[in-house]
């Protein structure tokens, strides 16, 4: 694309976006890259009056802010809240969700002075932002309503005042867990008068984090009951498939769903962009980072305020550099472009947010830090470098452009991963109804045990008491054996010197982790690696990548949970080779379909890292290897698995190696699709492939090595395991079992529509790891079982 030299003087904006999108479509180079343009027409707002029963002062307050009427969903939600119901509001970005909780909260504080409310946001930055908005409202009211944020940054001397006086306390689940609940006796005023608990960005509480949150809320409710309060919940969520279900699982109460959006919507163009293939044989496409740069410049040069989303901090910084350079070459100032990500100081963030609102900044490159509801005003274009991993967050990102009025555009630039490729090539999937589910498993044994400790620390358990929907007796007896609790007078008491919440992180199942110590100069901790991934990423002789730098692992101190690394400059990185043995403990459900069987149940895994490969950057050549002796790791978890019957395998007209390659390729593609449907992270589910027959014949369990080394390794009846990568499971296996057909169908579509010939990273995995014909085998298998 030619560099455009344009000034900021622009035609009326109403004309701009459609015209520019047209230009983009017609642009010679780009034409074939655009796989889809979705046009969404504007929609009128649907208004409703403020519900009856609100204090006149509240109406007056919002009138002063220029809000005379409410959008229909706001009115509906406020009405339900006033009627004493729990609600979950599910509407797109910028539809005025905060009003849904600020109105009832202010209303109750204005009418009953003692009322308290607790706001939970998943991040500190969001809490700060919302705090600001609420504070402005309070200022306007002229009433003495105290609103505070309470998090790790709150100064010690301010805490006492907040505990006693804060009408609205804005915090995050982690702080509630470690700082507030264990010290509830210092929060008597809050817990005695707690009327509303607001949970914003509900969709972020899924998987491990959500499973923890449910337990934190169980503890919150116990404490509230103790002080005689019974708060209502007001939840807000981005669009997901099961908001009501997720909300009622999280708070374990009934929830009213409000999902008819009454906010107006402006015209919007959503463009899917797939970088051109440069090597058809290997399925290599042009770098999506570079393509993102071109697309963003297309808009920036025309003076349109643009936000660019990247999926990592590194890519964010790279794009900032690219765009600044490009702007500097044109007549525009490079200061018009800014970066925004975690790690920037709060003041700098505020300044950028303000610059965006006031139009002083033309372009911002951000991580997901700007995806959630921080107010940055109205942008015109959103460009996404790579698919974020979920439909919900992609809509959130797209929604940062074109809040309410004026037209806007969003462009998704795909990278070469299977997920991205699937999305850009199947727009109907993306634009159809959201299929993503927020899933949690609060009764995961490890998570549950940890929260039981915290709960009994906070208040003794009565003998007949329940914890959420869990019977407490057995678990407490278990903890008694370990010396954590003791029963006296019909109650269980905490009998340990420790402060249990400190040992439990809400962001992971196990709190065990390794610290990575950089000993190049003065030793300093550069990061933490959780236990399961430590053995594959910081084993001795590994190259550990961090913030774009390479470190050589000199020593792994297993007992001290510490890896000592030294900064190096190498042209390779390492990839651990691990062997996994799977043992099926129990199948909860199985169903035979044609010549395949779908199952889910419990499995036992034994994993051992036995060596590593050295892989050259860029060329991905294998340039060496090494052996490792690391302890075996065992895990007991839940899994979905697909058994391909021997009869089916026998029908495949290919040799053993190709069959094996095909099975492995199928597994690779299925896992990618499973991530998509489960709305989880790639690391939440893992893959194992093994032969069914070896086990049944009573021999020791055969494993299938990652590469085919000898023809003796023949599989007869393979099992493809996709398991929850957490001890005792996080609740993904049964849903995956239920989605079996859908997953296989979409896997087939992904593989079939991939332009590569023999498999590539975008469908069945990188070629180096699969045999020729693997792609044909995959398609053959799929056609036989679908």
């Amino acid at each position, binding site marked *: 694309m030619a560099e455009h030299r344009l000034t900021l003087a622009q035609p009326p904006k109403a004309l701009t976006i459609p015209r520019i999108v047209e230009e983009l479509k017609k642009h010679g180079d780009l034409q074939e890259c655009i796989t889809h343009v979705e046009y969404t027409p504007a929609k009128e707002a649907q208004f409703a009056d403020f519900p009856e029963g609100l204090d006149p002062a509240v109406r007056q307050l919002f009138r002063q802010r220029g809000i005379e009427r409410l959008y229909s969903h706001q009115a509906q939600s406020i009405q339900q809240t006033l009627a004493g119901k729990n609600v979950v509001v599910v509407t797109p970005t910028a539809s005025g969700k905060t009003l849904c909780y600020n109105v009832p909260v202010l209303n109750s504080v204005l009418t009953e002075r003692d009322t308290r409310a607790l706001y939970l946001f998943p991040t500190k930055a969001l809490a700060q932002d919302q705090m600001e908005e609420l504070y402005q409202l309070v200022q306007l009211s002229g009433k003495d309503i105290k609103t505070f944020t309470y998090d790790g940054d709150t100064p010690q001397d301010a805490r006492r005042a907040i505990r006693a006086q804060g009408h609205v306390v804005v915090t995050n689940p982690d702080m509630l867990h470690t700082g507030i609940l264990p010290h509830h006796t210092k929060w008597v005023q809050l817990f005695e008068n707690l009327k509303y608990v607001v949970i914003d960005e509900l969709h972020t509480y899924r998987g491990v984090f959500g499973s923890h949150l449910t337990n934190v809320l169980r503890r919150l409710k116990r404490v509230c009951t103790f002080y005689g309060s*019974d708060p209502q919940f007001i939840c807000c969520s981005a669009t997901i498939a099961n908001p009501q279900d997720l909300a009622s699982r999280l708070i374990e109460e009934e929830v009213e769903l409000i999902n008819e959006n009454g906010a107006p919507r402006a015209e919007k163009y959503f463009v899917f962009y797939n970088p051109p293939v440069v090597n058809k044989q290997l399925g290599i496409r042009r770098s999506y980072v570079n393509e993102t740069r071109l697309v963003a410049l297309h808009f920036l040069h025309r003076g349109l305020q643009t936000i660019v989303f990247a999926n990592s901090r590194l890519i964010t910084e790279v794009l900032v550099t690219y765009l600044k350079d490009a702007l500097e070459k044109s007549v525009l100032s490079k200061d018009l472009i800014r970066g925004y990500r975690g790690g920037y100081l709060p003041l700098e963030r505020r300044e950028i947010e303000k610059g965006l609102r006031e139009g002083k900044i033309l372009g911002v490159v951000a991580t997901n830090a700007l995806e959630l509801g921080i107010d940055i005003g109205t942008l015109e274009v959103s460009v996404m470098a790579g698919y974020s991993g979920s439909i919900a967050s992609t809509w959130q990102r797209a929604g940062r452009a074109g809040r309410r009025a004026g037209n806007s555009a969003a462009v998704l630039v795909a990278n070469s991963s299977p997920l991205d490729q699937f999305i850009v090539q199947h727009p109907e999937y993306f634009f159809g109804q959201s299929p993503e589910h927020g899933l949690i498993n609060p009764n995961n044994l490890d998570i549950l045990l940890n929260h039981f400790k915290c709960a009994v620390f906070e208040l003794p358990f009565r003998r007949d008491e329940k914890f959420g929907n869990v019977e407490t007796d057995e*678990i407490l007896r278990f903890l008694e054996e370990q010396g954590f609790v003791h029963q006296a007078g019909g109650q269980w008491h905490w009998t*340990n*010197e420790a*402060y249990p919440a400190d040992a439990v992180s809400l962001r992971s199942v196990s709190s065990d982790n390794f610290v990575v110590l950089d000993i190049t100069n003065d030793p300093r901790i550069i990061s933490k690696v959780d236990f399961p991934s430590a053995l594959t990423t910081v084993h001795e002789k590994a190259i550990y990548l961090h913030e774009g730098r390479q470190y050589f692992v000199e020593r792994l101190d297993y007992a001290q949970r510490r890896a000592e690394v030294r900064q190096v400059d190498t042209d390779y990185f390492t990839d651990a080779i691990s062997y996994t043995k799977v043992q099926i403990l129990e199948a909860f459900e199985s169903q035979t379909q044609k010549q395949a069987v779908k199952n889910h149940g419990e499995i036992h895994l034994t994993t051992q890292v036995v060596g590593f490969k050295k892989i050259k950057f860029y060329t991905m050549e294998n340039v060496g290897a090494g052996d490792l002796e690391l302890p075996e790791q*065992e895990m007991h978890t839940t899994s979905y698995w697909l058994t391909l019957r021997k009869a089916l395998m026998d029908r495949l007209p290919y040799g053993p190696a190709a069959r094996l390659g095909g099975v492995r390729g199928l597994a690779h593609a299925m896992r990618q699709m499973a991530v998509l449907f489960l709305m989880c992270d790639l690391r939440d589910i893992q893959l194992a492939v093994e032969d069914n027959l070896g086990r049944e014949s009573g021999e020791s369990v055969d494993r299938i090595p990652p590469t085919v080394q000898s023809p003796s390794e023949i599989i007869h009846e393979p099992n493809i395991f996709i398991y929850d990568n957490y001890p005792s499971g996080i609740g993904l296996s049964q849903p995956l079992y239920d989605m079996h057909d859908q997953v296989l169908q979409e896997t087939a579509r992904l593989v079939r529509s991939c332009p590569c010939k023999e498999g590539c990273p975008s469908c069945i995995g990188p070629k180096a790891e699969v045999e020729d014909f693997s792609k044909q085998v995959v398609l053959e298998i799929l056609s036989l079982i679908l």
Partner: protein
Amino acid sequence: MKMIDRLQRQLEIHRRNQSRTFEAPESDGAHTLSLCPETELGEEGTRADSFAPFGGERARRAGEGDNQISSQLQADARQAILHQLERLRRLREGRSRNFRGQVSDRQLHSDFGGEIRMTTAGSFLYLTELYERSGIQLNGDDPESDRQLVLSLVQLLSGKQIECEPSRIAFLDTETTGLSGGAGAYAFLVGIGTWCSSGFIVEQFFMRNFDEEGAVICSLEERLSQVKVVVTFNGKCFDLPLLESRFIMHRRDWPLVDGIHLDLLHPSRRLWKLRLKDCSLANLERQVLGFERAEDVAGYLIPQLYFNYVRAGASTGLKAIFRHNRQDIRTLAELTRIVAGILVGCSSREELAVEDLFGAARYLASLGRRQQSLQFSEEVLERGGLESMKVEALRQLASIHESQKTYYRAAALWQKMMTTSPFFQAEACEKLAIHYEHRTGDLVKALELVEDAIRRIQIERNVQKSSRSGRLHQWLHRRARLQHKISRSSNYAQT
């Protein structure tokens, strides 16, 4: 694989996973300490309702609705949890249990000489110990003079003037199940010491099990409501907030709302930090009171000993804890008397180490007792001691004189400071220069001092090559002004 093997294996995995995931349970002292036969622990007491909820305004929504989602949810969850519990149940099999019966009340009674007290909230063990007036007390054995001392100390430290009988001054210390605070830390033993006509008496409130806490709190509420002044060591940050939290847990009012609290940690640090560094109560007891405990229990062992007692009835450790607590309280009372004696009393200063004397001088100055501080500082100088302390004392003294506007005495001290040690030389020099320039009008003498200071700074710079310009330009400025003044006055003199 056979069913039983599979379960065995599950048990193993869970243990192994656990050793990674959880901290190992604290020491298994119960094994060694208990010889009692196995019986079930504390059966249903009479007060299982101490945590009964205050009825919520709205009926609980959960579990009530038969809405499809929630009932489905319930069923799913039950299914899942049952499954996991099954595993847990297996886990427990074959494990030895170490629960032992509680020692009988009577045994404890006779062991410790306590009595079982009944309250509306149940019973607990109450112990008293009287220390007659010939005990460890070294000087002053009159409760009236002790009382006066403490009340004067209260007035000095809190600015509040109060009157009360000696029995309303309580020395308080708690033994707890955890040091990190939070709602799960219990004060299982609360000791209160008071002076009485026959000596010093320590009362101890002890919960023999967790279900006796309500009774202890109930009784404490009554006892503490009679207290006007409560004296602790680090009670501001630890004992009192923790106790208050226990009162809240039992929904009882905190009886010390209007009481005056004297935390001896801070004054002790001010007085003894210079000499002792370690200002823990134990060290103060050794170094200041000169008392060696024959046998004592280490503080960090206390929670575990209590847990052992509660679980297994092992009472040996308990005796040591009672003794430890009593001794802490006696030491606290004695220490209070010493602190008061130094700060507000007329205890002879000769017996004090010079560092302590100086610590007191500084502390008194910061409390606004200039006259006293003056006396103390002068005595420090008379007695000599470390160079650094001497010059600090000079400085302290000079600043008191300065603030009292007895400048000529301050000037003499500054002069002395300059010759005594290089520390604060510059400061003294500056003070003197100001003194001569502005108060006595001795401009030439002031100029001499300024020249001297400038020379010193320049030498210092050459020697250390440091960029520390000191406050050279200020001195140069002062010199210029002085020179100007001198030349003007000499001109004036000439004309």
